[in-house]
Every structure is written in C-alpha cells, then in structure tokens.
C-alpha cells in the first residue's frame, strides 16, 4: 500500500487492500464510494455481489446501448447480472442481510471509535434525511470492513476515542482500512496490524485520536 497524497490513488489503494480481505466464494455487499472500486481489484477471486434492491450476482456496468433501467444496483446505477444470479424482492433481500446470510459488507464511515463502533449515516447539526440500508448491514452481516480516508479533508481525526457523530448501531466493525493503515477490532480493543509503505507507527499515532495496540 502506498500513501501518496493523491485522492484518487488513495481511494484505489484502499479499495485494493479491501479486496484482499474478501474470501473466495463469499457473498459481499459493497457500499457507496470507495467500496464500489473493489471489483477492479479482485483478480481471479470470485465473489457474489449482493445489491439491497434484490440482486445476488451483480455484474459490471453494461455497455452504453445495453442499459436496462430496471436492472440496477443499490446506488441506482445500471448493472448487469452474472450467470447464476438470483433476483428477489426487498423484504427477502434485507432478510438476507439482517439474518446474517451476507458474509461481508464493505462500507464507508464518517467516524469510527476505538471499540469499532461506527458512524456512517448522519453528520451532527445537518439534516438527517437518509439512512438507506446502512444500519441493516451494520446490524446483520457476518463481517464489517470499513474503508475510509484516515483523516478528514481538513486533517481532522476520524478514528476517535468515542463517537461524536450519530452511531450506526451497537455492532462493531471487524476491520478498518485507510490509506495509511489497517486496524482490526476485537473485544472492544483496536489493533494496528499493517502500515502502508513509508508510513511510521508514530505518524499513525499522530493522526489517530484513539488508543490502539500495535500488532504489526
């Protein structure tokens, strides 16, 4: 992983590292933003992409002339369906999520605390008018992987001692991937398990407003 100060590369690096976390044959739900870049980095690994609106086996975007506005993903983008895919309704789709049948969700976060509790749907003081499937994913899937930039654009810490943004639920994340580091969470404790090339543990410490155990 390379910590270049370039937003696009940064996002690609995060997506690439997140792709490595996914297991062969897993059912994966990808959130908006960085997670949507993951399919480019899967290589030979085959996973099943689940879309909240009722598709298991989501394929890449169609060619321009092939767009079907009734074949979309949860970001409302036109997609294709891969062989072996299945189509179903929203109630069953969220039964899959809430019931623990989706192996992994890779989602963005606005903030995460040192226990792994996360905030990914609302900003304090702003209108709270959208939540979508965020809380269902957090509550239900087997493994939650967070992908986000290590700090905000203005350099503020997003990894904090305790959340100041509205929580997405009791469920803790399992893995956090930023352009600088990879953390895991276990029993309310955060572990630094990887640093990007050229990044020091000291730098991680400075940009992280939370306690973590170094476990490189």
């Amino acid at each position: 992983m390379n910590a270049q100060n370039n937003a696009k590369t940064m996002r690609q690096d995060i997506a690439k590292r997140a792709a490595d976390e996914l297991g062969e044959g897993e059912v994966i739900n990808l959130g908006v933003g960085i997670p949507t870049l993951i399919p480019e980095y899967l290589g030979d690994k085959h996973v099943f992409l689940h879309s909240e609106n009722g598709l298991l086996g989501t394929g890449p975007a169609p060619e321009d002339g092939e767009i079907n506005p009734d074949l979309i993903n949860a970001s409302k983008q036109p997609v294709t369906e891969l062989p072996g895919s299945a189509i179903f309704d929203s109630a069953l789709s969220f039964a899959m999520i809430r019931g623990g049948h989706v192996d992994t969700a890779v989602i963005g976060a606005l903030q995460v605390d040192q226990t792994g509790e996360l905030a990914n749907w609302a900003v304090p003081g702003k209108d709270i008018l959208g939540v979508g499937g965020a809380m269902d994913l957090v509550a239900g899937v087997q493994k939650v992987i967070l992908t986000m930039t290590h700090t905000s654009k203005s350099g503020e810490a997003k990894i904090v001692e305790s959340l100041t943004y509205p929580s997405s639920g009791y469920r803790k994340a399992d893995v956090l991937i930023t352009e600088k580091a990879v953390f895991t969470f276990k029993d309310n404790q955060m572990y630094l398990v990887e640093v990007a090339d050229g990044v020091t543990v000291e730098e991680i410490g400075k940009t992280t407003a939370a306690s973590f155990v170094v476990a490189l």
Partner: protein
Amino acid sequence: MASKKEISLKDISKYIKDGDQVLVGGFGLSGCPLTIVDEIAKTDVKDLTIVSNNLGEPQKGLGKLLDNGQIKKAIGSYFTTHRGAVNAWNEGWLEIELLPQGTMAEGIRAAGAGIPAFYTPTGAGTKLSDNKEVREFDGKEYVLEKSIPGDVALIRAHKADEYGNLVYRKTQENFNTAMAMAGKIVIAEVDEIVPIGELNPEEIKTQHLFVDYLVKTRYEIEGGTFVERTK
C-alpha cells in the same frame, strides 16, 4: 376475456382520498408506478402520507406530488435524492419519518402478513430507535417496530395476467410485492395484460389475491431510461 381488474387512468383518483396513507413501490424510478403518480398529480387529492423508499426526483415520479404540495408526511429510508424534500422539511410543511430500509421492507410485509409488530436488531443503539421500545432477547438489544399498512398501494410490474397475477422485469420488484400485500386497495401499473395461463404458476411473484385493479403504463424504456409515450 379482458381482465375484470383493468381500470382506466381517469378512474384511479376514485380510490385515493385526502389524508390516505399511500404505499408507492419503486427503488428510484425502477418499479415506481409513474403513470399512476402522474394521474394523482393532476388531481386535488392532498394531505397524503407517502410510504416509499425515496420521493423521486424534481418533476419525476413522486417528486411531482411533493412539488405540488400534495404530501403531508413521507415515510422512507432515503430522501436526499430530491432536494425539495429536504427544503420542505426545513420549511416545516413536510413531516418526515426516516426508517432503515430493511425495517421499512419488513414492516410493510408484516402489515400484509397480519403481523402488527416485530423485533429487529437494526437501529438498536441509534437515534432512529429513540422513543421506540427496546427489548433484550438472549442478551442482545432489539427494537420493536410496528407494521406499515396502506390505505392504498400503488405498484408497478411488468406483466399481469387477467386475474391480476404479476411478474416483474429484473430488479423492478423491490418493494412492490410487500406493498401489494399491505395495501387495502392495490392498483398495479403494468406494461401488458396477458391471458390466463400464460404465466407459469411458479414464476408469479405477486399473487392475484393481493391485487385489486390494473392499469396500463404510459411509460416505456427507451435509450436506457423511462420515457412517457406521447399517445
């Protein structure tokens, strides 16, 4: 035999009255009954509570009803697709009830399935469970959610048979089947009504006992989008 359930577009307004709670299918514009919504936008019906994942876009789908001021309250999971919803809420004339998308889907299905309330892990420990009952089962917290019935459900499918059995085009189904179950009166907008026996019993997604009326759509897919047929 023509379907006994087919009605004309001008009859739609007979079934919706001021103050109704109206379930409207669709995830974005896919699966949204655009023709039916257009017809309602032409009427004076008002004070509607709309249950739908989003509120369309400006002058598209449910956005028309919002722009007309026909909506009093919106229940859904994602309102930021239409800036007008955010503005109306800030101005204080639109009440908004935000629900996690899965809670909304399950709540609608529950209403149709005779289940008045259920417990869900989603939203426990968040602002969205403020003022809701929380209860532990096996040491974990769950939120009590009420079912979400509709006075009317407006849904969209691909084909109906003459009895009103429905099938969908790809991911068009989304909330539509659950809403058909939960609506006291259910009107389905379809591309085509086919003779009895043309749909396989196993492929039917919404069974005719859930569907009261059928109307033919005025929208078709052209260039990857939904386009209104100009007569």
